[in-house]
C-alpha cells in the first residue's frame, strides 16, 4: 500500500551497540523525560472548589418552568412522557379548581410529575416535545444520592422558584446555572 503520509518509518532492526546494550543511558534519558513532567501544567480540575464550565447546549437536570406571574406552565398533556425514549417521566393530571388560577396557567395541571434520574438519558426530547415551554434541561447534573428513591425527582425538586414570591432565589438559581 502506498503510504498516506511521509511519517512512516522502517523499524530499525540493527543489532544494539555496546552503549545501547548498557541501557543506562536510555534509562537516564527516560528519567529526564519523567523529571520534565514535574514542571508541566496539570490538566486536573480540582472539582468541588473549581468547576469546569459547561457548554451552552449542555443538557443537564430538568426544571419545570413557571410563567412571569409564577404560575406553573405544565398542563400535563403527557407529550414529554410519550417522547421520552427511556420512559423516565410519569405524571398524573388534575383539574384546576376555582381559586387556583394564580397557581396553574391552564385548566389542567400535573398533580404529580416525576422524573427518574437513573432512567433518564438526558437526550432533551422532552424539552423538544413540550408545547407549553414547561420543561427545560438546565446546566447542572443530578448530584449523588444514597438511595435509588432519592433519584426520583418530584415536583418540589423540579419546579423553578416562583418569580413573584421568591425572586431572589430565582436570581440565585439563574446565576449559578448561567
Amino acid at each position, binding site marked *: 500500500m502506498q503510504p498516506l503520509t511521509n511519517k512512516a518509518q522502517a523499524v530499525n532492526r540493527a543489532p544494539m551497540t555496546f552503549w545501547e546494550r548498557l541501557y543506562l543511558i536510555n534509562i537516564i534519558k*527516560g*528519567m529526564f523525560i*519523567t523529571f520534565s*513532567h514535574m514542571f*508541566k*501544567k*496539570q490538566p486536573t480540575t*480540582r472539582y468541588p472548589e473549581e468547576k469546569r464550565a459547561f457548554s451552552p447546549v449542555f443538557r443537564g437536570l430538568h426544571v419545570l418552568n413557571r410563567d412571569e406571574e409564577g404560575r406553573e406552565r405544565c398542563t400535563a398533556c403527557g407529550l414529554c412522557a410519550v417522547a421520552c425514549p427511556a420512559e423516565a417521566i410519569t405524571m398524573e393530571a388534575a383539574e384546576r379548581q376555582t381559586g387556583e388560577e394564580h397557581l396553574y396557567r391552564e385548566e389542567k395541571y400535573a398533580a404529580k410529575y416525576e422524573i427518574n434520574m437513573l432512567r433518564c438519558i438526558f437526550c432533551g426530547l422532552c424539552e423538544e416535545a413540550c408545547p407549553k415551554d414547561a420543561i427545560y434541561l438546565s446546566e447542572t447534573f443530578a448530584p449523588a444520592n444514597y438511595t435509588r428513591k432519592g433519584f426520583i425527582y418530584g415536583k418540589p425538586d423540579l419546579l423553578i422558584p416562583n418569580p413573584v414570591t421568591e425572586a431572589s432565589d430565582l436570581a440565585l438559581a439563574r446565576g449559578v446555572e448561567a
Partner: protein
Amino acid sequence: MTILAFDWGLVIEKLILIAVVVFGSLGIALYTTFGERKVAAILQDRPGPNRAGPFGLLQPLADGIKLIMKEEIIPTAANKWLFILGPGLAMTASLMTCAVIPWGSDIELFGRKIALQIADINIGILYVFAVVSMGVYGIMIGGWASNNKFSLMSSLRAASQAISYELAMGLALIALLMTTESLSLKTIVEQQVQGSWWNIVYQPLGFLLFFIAALAECNRTPFDLPEAENELNFGYHQEYSSMKLGFYLFAEYINMIMSSAIMASMYFGGYDLPFFDESTVAPNIAAMIGVGTLLIKIVLFIFLFMWIRWTIPRFRYDQLMNLGWKTMIPLALFNLLITGALILANL
C-alpha cells in the same frame, strides 16, 4: 550517675537515642508513603493526595488509622504463628539496621560527650549485611505461612533475588572496604569528613553496583518482582490485612530509608556538609548541621528511588537473574581487581 560501678548515664543516653532514631525513622517512613504518592502524581501530571489537611499532609495519618481499623483476617489454612511472625520479623529486621548508622558527629550535653550513633561496632557493615539478609525471612515466612500459591511463589522470588543481589552488593562493598581499611561506619564517615574527597570519587562503579543491588534488596521497581501486582496479586502480602499488611508496606519504606542512609554514609560522606568548615561553629551546632545534611542526603536518595520507580518498568524474571549473575557479579569482580591494582600501585 555511677551506681554499682556502672555508668547509668550511658544507658539513659542510648535509650533516648534509640527512641529518637526508631520513632524518627517511623515518622519519616510514614511521610515517605505520602511522598511516594505525591512524587508519582507530580511525575504523571496530576495533583496527588490533597484532601486530608493542607496539601494532603494528614493523608499518612488517615491511611494509618484506616489500616488499624480494618478487620484482621487470618486464613483458616494459614499457619497462625508464622503468619503473625512474618510482618513482625520484616519490621524488626528493617529497623535493626539503624543501630550502626552514624547520624552526626559527637554532641556535648550536661558535660557528657554523646555520640549520635546507637552502637559504633567495629564490624558495622558486616552487621548491616547480616540484618539485611534477615529481612528476607520476614517475606519468606509470610509468603509460606499464607498457604497461597501466589504468595509462596512471590516469597521464592524474593529469596532468590535477595541472595543473587546480596552477592554483587557485598563484592561492590569489598572494593570500598579495601580503600577505607575499616568496617566501622563511623570510621568510614570520619575519613570522608577529614579527607578531601567522598568515596564516590574513588568508587564510581562500585557505587553504581551497590545502588542497583540496593534497589533489588528493597524490592523496589525495576526489581519489585516479589510484589508484581499484575501476575502475583501483590505476592507475599496478598493474604494480609489490617496493620499486618501495614507492617509489610512500612518495612519496605524503612528499608528504603536505611539503604539511603547507608549509601549516603559510605559513598557520599554521611553527615559531611561539603565546603563547610565544622570547626568554625560550636560542636553542638556543627553536629546538628551534620544531622540535617545526612537527612537531606537521605531524602535525595529516597527521591531518586521514587523517580526510578515511576520511570522504568519491571524486569522479567530471567532478565533479573541474567543481570544479577552475568553482569553485576563480573563487574563487581572487575571493580575489585582494578581497586586492588591501584592500591598495589600506590595511587
